[in-house]
């Protein structure tokens, strides 16, 4: 009898489930219209790796927001992602912005590369469509006076000043004389711009730039760059390149036994990348980077990290940045209590969002730039990426100079 | 008085002396022939006269002026037109368009050039094929086209490189009066020809080139009985045998 009873209970459960399934459409119908948010990422072409990570961050954020009940001020409206592939080119991005506009999104998040962000935010501004830049660091993105464009993360200017300040602190703390620097940068948008700023700023903290070495992307060979570094024998090497080239450079330096007192990267594509750390632990060890990074002390950030790893990806900065940017938009819509673009823009302008997973203060936008954004310094230690600055969120002490 | 004077032209290709100190004169209003066995250097000499091949030595005087350094298109503008032994039609163009390219040299307007082109096409017997693509023409048709295109530039001196080769006797019979008519209009002609029958009929004066050298000149009749010429054509010992048979 026990068996039949349990069967009976199971059947009852099944019936109940059926009822709830039948009832579901009614609940759905009662729900308010979903809010559509455009996620623009380059998932094909040269930047596909980064674009996929950005998409992952946005997806995780939207899932979390919807699971938490959607936009409450709009009666629990769900957030719907409209994905657009920027195909690694500004032109394609512009085209996709048009499509997102046609699909009636309330805001766009993403872009990743500065050229894409520049072109896409400009295209969106024709429609006063709020555009949240996830990564693009070029300062011109927010200095053009576009009222629709907001950048959550820090820009070039902020990165260089923080990177230099932290470097000065690092050198002071080490107590060792560090005088000479070689800059190695990719000759595209971000590397060249950064090198220019560094060249102006580094002498102010008493560092002599021995040489600025640009290289194209892709580069076939880093042997010459390494040779020049060897010839110059600087105390410090500051590289800013994309992933492939920095990996080539780091490995070539390792091979050529070039051991400066430190490799202090700024916004480098590889220096704070788990893949590099995992695949070439020796070359990566003790490399420092000033970059975007999540707050290692934020439990939500650690959850997101686990989720990303469960999805088979590394937790690069794209994930938490997009996660946070989507949260920022959702918060603005929540406060605007409307899918209306002008109201969302107004809400963003007065935003004091603190529910992100970056080591930032609450947001405060001035001219579209988040004043609360802070670059962090990282160092590869023991096969992991540790935050070494600012001290408030640091997870490890810097090791500098590199022990011989 | 000569229209064209070729003075001591030599052309060396690597180790090969294709033309060796050759000279000739073409008086205005005449048809002059240039004959010689295969590989004698006739076409090379033509190339030098029309400016396509720079000579190693010697000079070309046309209408009293030294034109040795002039590029081909400049010679064409000053009235020297040539045909090619290996016909060079503009294969992608129609017959009338081909000829019009020549006519544009003297007529800037499309309507004029086309009218001239179509007139000339009729004169050389291509009237029925005006709008056919040049690539669809037979060998005879292409030879006529070569001739028509050169004529369309309104030349004073016409250089004909074997316009009869590859034609059958009736085709040759058709074309000879056309050439005579061209001369009658005052165009001076220098022609390379293999078909001796035509040379005999057309030319007042003939030059014979063999192995790059001028070996004889004179009236066609005189040339035909010249021992050196017969040997050059029929081979060593031919003259003697011919004499024996005759």
């Amino acid at each position: 009898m026990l068996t039949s009873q349990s069967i009976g209970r199971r059947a009852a459960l099944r019936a109940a489930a059926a009822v709830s399934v039948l009832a579901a459409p009614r609940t759905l119908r009662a729900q308010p219209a979903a809010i559509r948010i455009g996620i623009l990422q380059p998932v094909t072409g040269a930047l596909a790796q980064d674009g996929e990570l950005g998409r992952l961050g946005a997806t995780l954020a939207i899932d979390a927001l919807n699971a938490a009940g959607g936009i409450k001020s709009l009666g629990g409206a769900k957030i719907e992602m409209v994905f657009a592939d920027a195909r690694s080119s500004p032109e394609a991005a512009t085209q996709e912005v048009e499509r997102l506009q046609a699909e009636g999104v309330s805001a766009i998040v993403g872009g990743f590369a500065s050229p894409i962000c520049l072109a896409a935010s400009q295209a969106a501004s024709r429609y006063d469509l709020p555009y949240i830049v996830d990564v693009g660091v070029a300062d011109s993105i927010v200095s053009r006076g576009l009222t629709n464009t907001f950048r959550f993360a820090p820009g070039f200017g902020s990165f260089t000043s923080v990177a230099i300040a932290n470097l000065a602190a690092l050198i002071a703390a080490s107590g060792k004389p560090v005088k000479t620097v070689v800059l190695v940068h990719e000759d595209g948008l971000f590397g060249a711009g950064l090198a220019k700023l560094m060249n102006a700023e580094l002498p102010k903290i008493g560092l002599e730039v021995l040489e600025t070495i640009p290289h194209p992307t892709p580069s076939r060979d880093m042997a010459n760059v390494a040779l020049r570094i060897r010839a110059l024998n600087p105390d410090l090497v500051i590289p800013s390149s994309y992933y492939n080239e920095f990996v080539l450079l780091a490995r070539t330096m390792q091979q050529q036994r070039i051991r400066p007192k430190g490799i202090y990267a700024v916004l480098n594509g590889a220096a704070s990348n788990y893949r590099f750390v995992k695949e070439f632990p020796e070359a990566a060890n003790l490399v420092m980077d000033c970059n975007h990074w999540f707050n290692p002390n934020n439990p939500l950030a650690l959850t997101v990290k686990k989720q990303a790893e469960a999805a088979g990806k590394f937790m690069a900065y794209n994930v938490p940045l997009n996660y946070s940017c989507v949260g920022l938009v959702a918060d603005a819509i929540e406060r605007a209590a409307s899918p209306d673009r002008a109201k969302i823009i107004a809400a963003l302008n007065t935003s004091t969002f603190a529910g992100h997973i970056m080591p930032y203060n609450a947001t405060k936008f001035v001219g579209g730039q988040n004043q609360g954004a802070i670059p962090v310094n990282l160092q590869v230690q023991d096969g992991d990426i540790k935050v070494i600055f600012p001290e408030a969120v640091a997870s490890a002490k810097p090791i500098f100079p590199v022990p011989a | 008085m000569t229209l064209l004077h070729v003075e001591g032209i030599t052309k060396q290709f690597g180790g090969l002396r294709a033309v060796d100190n050759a000279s000739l004169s073409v008086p205005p209003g005449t048809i002059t022939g240039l004959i010689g066995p295969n590989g004698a250097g006739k076409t090379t000499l033509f190339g030098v006269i029309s400016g396509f091949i720079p000579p190693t030595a010697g000079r070309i005087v046309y209408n009293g002026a030294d034109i040795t350094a002039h590029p081909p298109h400049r010679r064409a503008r000053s009235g020297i037109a040539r045909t090619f032994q290996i016909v060079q039609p503009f294969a992608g163009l129609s017959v009338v368009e081909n000829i019009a390219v020549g006519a544009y040299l003297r007529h800037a307007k499309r309507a004029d050039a086309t009218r001239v082109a179509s007139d000339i096409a009729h004169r050389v017997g291509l009237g029925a094929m005006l709008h056919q693509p040049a690539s669809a023409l037979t060998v005879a048709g292409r030879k006529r086209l070569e001739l028509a295109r050169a004529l369309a530039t309104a030349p004073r001196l016409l250089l004909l490189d074997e316009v009869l080769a590859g034609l059958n006797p009736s085709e040759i019979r058709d074309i000879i009066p056309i050439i005579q008519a061209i001369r009658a209009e005052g165009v001076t002609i220098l022609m390379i020809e293999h078909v001796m029958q035509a040379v005999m009929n057309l030319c007042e004066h003939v030059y014979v080139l063999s192995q790059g050298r001028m070996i004889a000149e004179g009236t066609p009749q005189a040339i035909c009985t010249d021992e050196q010429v017969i040997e050059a054509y029929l081979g060593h010992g031919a003259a003697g045998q011919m004499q024996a048979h005759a």
Partner: protein
Amino acid sequence: MLEITGLRTGYGQTEIIRGLDLAIAPGQIVAVLGANGVGKTTLNKALSGLLPIWSGTIQFEGSSLAGATPADIVAAGLIHVPEGRKIFPNMSVLENLELGSYRRARLHRRTNLDRAFTIFPRLRDRASQMAGTLSGGEQQMLAIGRGLMAEPRLLILDEPSLGLSPLLVEEMFTLIRTLNQEGLTIMLVEQNVVQSLDIADHATILENGQCSIQGPAAELAANPALRRAYLGL
């Protein structure tokens, strides 16, 4: 050995050979004569498979050559020494000769090389010289020697005397006669009428893509039509 009936062929749309008949018996030298542009070279190209046959038949030793590739024809033993020699200027004399036996008689390469060098001692002296640097006469020897390397059953010689000095022409014709006396069948395509008729058994005059006069060489030499065909007299 070779029998051509009603052959028509040409380039693109243009017919050059317009119904040609020709037969060659084993052991003969047959001279094919004619002025420039009558279709001699076109005929040779059709015979060696470089041009498709439009209509008519070519039988070589009893089998048809319709649709045969140049390689097939070489393999069958019909070797064509082309006008203008077409030797490989970037290769040594020895390599040129070796390639003569690329398709046929490869196993006899060594013996045939010796034979070629015996026939043309001058080639032996220049075995390692680049063929492009040879004189015209030497190049012609090389072309024939290369043809002989394939142990031809029938050898087509296209204008072998072209561009040679009179002395060399003499030498060339003597050589052709010698080769024939050693048993080689030869089709000799020439402009040099008198000397060709001197050594040929049989001759044919090509005019306008057809054979206008055919017959034993000695008869043709006396035929006034010959002189007319050439000089238009």
